[in-house]
């Protein structure tokens, strides 16, 4: 937080000044000090006209609007959950059309291969029989679901919604950091950020040529409809949420509202004779497609955790019988296991016979003896990740870690090698971001959302997350990250 004094002192100063330091990183806006990349020129010209006071005012107006609309997430870890707004930076990220084109093709290719992989591991298991990927990695994955074997899902699509995290290295190359195939969140921020930017910088939109993303909810709905049981075009689609205390509840209710579908909790649904119904004031109504934002483990107390209070008993049986579609399917988590991630380029070769358009970050699997020795010898240089965690939890950033933390991870890696992978520390690209009255370079990533149903499609854009702590590499909302609007330009 800035003191009032500091505010006053700087409020008449321009936010773009000579102090901006590109550092040894790939800077999204500046080619070299003071020289913007062509697609940022109009934006920079506009920013140059703003002083800190004006900018601060606009920023506060955007924050208040987020708070009043209840665009919040809940942070856990302290005694009780606290509602926060997801910090929003008003400086947008701009992606030229040609660059997006590559991302779009690369992500479609990747998600297509991942869906082939999921179908394969839950049917013939060819890729394992042919020893292209070690059996123990797949079968030992925490989210490999045996009960999915031989279940046929509509159009053989398992991951209907994928959020893939992309980063750029110091040369500006896009790399895939991880795929999120269970229930990726954040798309509501992508949409809300765009609204906030339109309110704040209406004039810029007029002549920038920014591709729209507002149709995402309709695309999502048509994707969900396209995988309805028996291809029913009038299928009833609902969104299943763990409830209002879930950290992503805002997003759940936002998407349901945008799609015009019911948002239901487990207690609103009931199974009868292998069909799923919702309880309404007019009696029971059959449900065909469930866009579920509840983890596998909690979906059905009959099949999984009997202590689950947010699930629907009998749901898995109805699913197996083909009377309801779950999106995403059960067991997609096996494909976003961080050890299996290392094999995605192989999957693209194996299932599609194509060269991967997007590269992975080099990854060492602690499970392999050679890799493990390397990891243990270079803990201080690597980023170590637990294979099943997400959201920046269970992670060791070697260069920033204490000796004690390194030792703790060393023991864990030796005891449970299957549970860890390591990657070199990538110098994430940076983007000018408003901090304390001026622009500073902050690390960013990008999460586009890939929809897979009858076809595979993306809306042009995604959620750009930014590490708002100076020097921090962690961009997750639960770890002090914020977000930016992402502008993909027309050709």
């Amino acid at each position, binding site marked *: 937080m800035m003191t009032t004094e500091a505010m006053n002192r700087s409020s008449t100063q321009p936010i773009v000044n000579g102090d901006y330091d590109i550092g040894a990183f790939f800077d999204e806006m500046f080619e070299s000090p003071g020289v913007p990349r062509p697609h940022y020129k109009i934006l920079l010209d506009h920013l140059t006209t703003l002083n800190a006071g004006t900018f601060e005012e606009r920023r506060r107006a955007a924050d208040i609007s987020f708070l009043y609309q209840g665009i919040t997430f809940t942070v856990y870890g302290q005694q009780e959950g606290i509602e926060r707004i997801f910090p929003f930076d008003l400086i947008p990220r701009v992606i030229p059309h040609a660059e997006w084109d590559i991302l779009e093709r690369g992500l479609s290719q990747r998600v297509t291969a991942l869906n082939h992989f999921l179908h394969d591991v839950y049917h013939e*298991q060819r890729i394992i029989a042919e020893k292209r990927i070690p*059996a123990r990695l797949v079968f030992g994955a925490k989210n490999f679901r045996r009960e999915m*074997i031989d279940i046929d899902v509509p159009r053989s699509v398992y991951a209907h919604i994928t959020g893939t995290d992309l980063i750029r290295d110091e040369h500006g190359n896009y790399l895939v950091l991880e795929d999120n195939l269970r229930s990726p969140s954040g798309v509501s921020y992508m949409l809300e950020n765009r609204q906030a930017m339109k309110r704040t910088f209406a004039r810029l939109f007029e002549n920038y040529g920014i591709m729209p993303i507002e149709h995402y909810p309709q695309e999502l709905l048509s994707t969900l409809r396209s995988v309805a049981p028996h291809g029913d075009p009038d299928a009833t689609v609902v969104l299943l949420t763990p409830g209002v205390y879930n950290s992503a509840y805002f997003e759940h209710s936002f998407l349901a509202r945008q799609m015009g579908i019911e948002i239901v909790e487990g207690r609103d649904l*009931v199974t*009868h*004779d292998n069909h799923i119904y919702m309880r309404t004031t007019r009696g029971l109504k059959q449900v065909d497609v469930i866009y579920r934002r509840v983890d596998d483990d909690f979906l059905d107390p009959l099949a999984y955790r*009997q202590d689950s209070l947010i699930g629907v*008993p009998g749901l898995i*049986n109805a699913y197996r*019988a083909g009377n309801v579609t779950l999106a995403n399917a059960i067991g997609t988590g096996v494909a976003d296991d961080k050890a299996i991630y290392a094999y995605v380029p192989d999957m693209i070769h194996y299932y599609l016979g194509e060269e991967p358009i997007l590269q992975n970050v080099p990854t060492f699997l602690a499970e392999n003896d050679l890799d493990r020795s390397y990891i243990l010898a270079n803990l201080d240089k690597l980023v170590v990740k637990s294979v099943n965690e997400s959201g920046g939890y269970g992670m060791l950033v070697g260069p920033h870690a204490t000796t004690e933390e390194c030792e703790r991870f060393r023991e864990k890696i030796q005891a449970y090698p299957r549970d860890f992978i390591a990657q070199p520390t990538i110098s994430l690209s940076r983007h000018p971001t408003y901090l304390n009255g001026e622009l500073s370079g902050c690390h960013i990533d990008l999460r586009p959302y890939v929809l897979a149903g009858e076809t595979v499609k993306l809306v042009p854009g995604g959620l750009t997350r930014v590490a708002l702590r100076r020097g921090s590499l962690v961009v997750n909302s639960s770890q002090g990250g914020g977000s930016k609007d992402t502008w993909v330009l027309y050709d």
Partner: protein
Amino acid sequence: MRLRIDHRTTLSYDQQISEAYTEMRLKPMDAGGQRCLSFNLVTEPRGEIMQYLERRRNDVRHFDVLAPHTRLMVHSTSEVLTPIKLIDEEHELSPLDQFDFLMPSTYTPEDAKTRRFATTFVQDDARDTVFALMHAVYTHLKYVPGATDVRTKADDVLTLGQGVCQDFAHVMIASCRCQGIPARYVSGYLNDPASDGRNGASHAWMDAFIPGSGWISLDPTHNCEQTENYVRLAVGRDYSDVPPTRGVFKGKAKETLDVQVSVHPL
């Protein structure tokens, strides 16, 4: 041998429950040389009974009762033709079975004690090792009903030194697996003409996979191979994969379980 089985499970509740979902693995398998000649399942309250086959050919039936009730009964009758011993149809395990039947599972965790116990009985030949292990489990554990419950795991059984057939099978499975021998749990019935007081009709034992010759089926509770007196219902990694009945319901009632099984030669 031709056997007739009558199996009645009654669940009683001290107050009304509703939305009860029940899953059953009660139909004798058509596998391993065994043939199920007839199977009939009746429930009370009545519900539409649905069915599916699991990957390992276990037959699962399930039904729901939404209306309030205080008693739920499941009655199955079946006729089955049993072979004199397990007739194996499988000579090579699929990669998944290879993984599942060798790795620790819910009831058969990996632990040092089981490993030490099992190592003592290792023979040159896998088959001999399995028989030595069966004998060891049989002599090491005392059959004491009530000493364990349905949630007791293999390592605790070994420490306790006593248990029922489910526990005997789990200890034996854990022992085989840590010797690199794939092993699986079998749920079923036992026709025991000369009942020696050890658990009547519902029974559990195990299969071990001998490379080159396939599955053999052993009963560590009785220290013998599976005979024509054994009826197989389902196989899995351990008990948690194949409980004969399993259910959830809505309500705060206390549940009382009554099971009556009879097995008769025809």
